[in-house]
């Protein structure tokens, strides 16, 4: 199947007949987890991801006393693939978390200053948990999209007189001011394509994942894959990703 995927790509085709620049069908459901402060389910082809946002109250980091806390975690649940094992997150799950984290943190998507309860002492924390339910390729793009949609519907919970969270009551929306979208561009020889299937991921030379803000500024990049990329190809990959990011952003209302 993998060799077949490779041969097809080299001949300008794909297993599921998609165009090289075409994403699979994307289905988004919001607020799928009522217990969470925000949540989103993203189905990208047969890849399924849930992002759930829990908010808590904590102590700010000493070097950022006037900012809330952001934490991104992902679970490659063994539901999702015979390759995923139980146990602490492996390097791929950690890498995915950290790239999604950088895309949100570096882009200043959340106004972290508005999450201070008492400066230097007490702030809101935002935990983004990305749950992979079914892996049929291109997890990162699906995960980043789910995280963004979940952030956009996240509500800040109310505090009682003692400063503890009142579950189920909310005082305002989470202050989200940017919409970073991550697009991964794959490369086999001189062929570039987006939204790889699992079978395609197994045979790519390289993949470049790029997060763009709505002002078209780049806010995170990560190269993956077993081969190097020519400098010329890099620029093309950035262009492709920028174009596709505009398309995907329309889905994140």
């Amino acid at each position, binding site marked *: 199947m993998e060799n077949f995927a490779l041969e097809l790509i080299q001949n300008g085709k794909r297993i599921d007949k998609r165009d090289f620049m075409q994403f699979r069908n994307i289905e988004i459901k919001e607020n799928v987890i009522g217990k969470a402060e925000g949540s989103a389910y993203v189905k990208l082809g*047969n890849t399924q991801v849930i992002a759930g946002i829990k908010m808590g109250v904590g102590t700010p980091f000493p070097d950022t006393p006037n900012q809330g806390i952001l934490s991104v975690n992902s679970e490659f649940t*063994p539901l999702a693939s015979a390759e995923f094992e139980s146990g602490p997150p492996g390097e791929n799950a950690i890498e995915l978390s950290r790239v999604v984290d950088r895309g949100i943190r570096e882009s200043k998507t959340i106004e972290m200053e508005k999450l201070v309860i008492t400066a230097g002492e007490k702030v809101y924390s935002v935990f983004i948990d990305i749950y992979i339910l*079914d892996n049929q390729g291109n997890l990162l793009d699906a995960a980043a999209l789910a995280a963004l949609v979940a952030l956009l519907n996240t509500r800040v919970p109310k505090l009682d007189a003692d400063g503890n969270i009142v579950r189920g009551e909310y005082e305002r929306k989470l202050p989200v001011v940017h919409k970073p979208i991550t697009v991964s561009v794959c490369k086999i020889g001189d062929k570039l394509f987006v939204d790889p299937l699992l079978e395609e991921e197994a045979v790519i030379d390289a993949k470049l994942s790029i997060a763009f803000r709505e002002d078209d500024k780049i806010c995170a990049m990560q190269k993956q894959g077993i081969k190097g990329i020519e400098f010329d190809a890099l620029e093309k990959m950035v262009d492709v990703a920028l174009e596709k990011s505009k398309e995907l952003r329309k889905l994140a209302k």
Partner: protein
Amino acid sequence: MGKKSDIELIVGGLRKDKRLPEQTREIKMKVGNIVSANGSAEVSFGNTIALSSVHGPRELFPRHLQESQTGILRVRYNMAPFSVDDRKSPGPDRRSVEISKVIRLALEPAIFLDDYPKVTVDGFVEVIQADGSTRVTGINALSLALASAGIPMKDLVTACSVGKINGTLIVDLNGEEDNNSESDVAVAIMPTSNLVTLLQMDGVLTKEELMHLLDLAKKTCKDIHEMQRNVLLEKYKGEE
């Protein structure tokens, strides 16, 4: 349990979510929802949602764990960090280790892996939203996932919770009821052969109350079993 049994959970014969004592919440079932697995299912009881998938039969590593005469079943039950009020940090805790074991024991009597020596069948239950009765919801889901994976089964396994709140015997405890119950009981049944494969009880009950609750559980499981059969039949129909 029983911590604050002075809370009013039943008013005018109805539970806070308007259910009758012996009524379950709305139950939804789906199979085949995860294409990467050999079998899968999603089951919800009201706001409690459990996803399940099965990988295998597949070779078991390391080899010295293999059984030469039969395949084995392994089960992991897990709760998503966002499934509860205060974020649960990822990874197994003592509760999930125990529940993983009792779910395995609840399913083992129903499957036969004698034709699969040296292999493992791995069943996973992920609770993505928790509002009481998560383990029995997970058993219903895993039973469907095993069946949809084509694992040889003597019978399905069907589960529900029963218990006692404000002195009344009830079916299908939600989260608030569970936290304030006088007793809760988790039951799994092989409905065709009428065998109990899971029985766990917490709280304080007389023997008579227990027997009554087991009766309620038996009846409830019959209905749930019917739903399980239907969702599997629909799936096979769809595949023809």
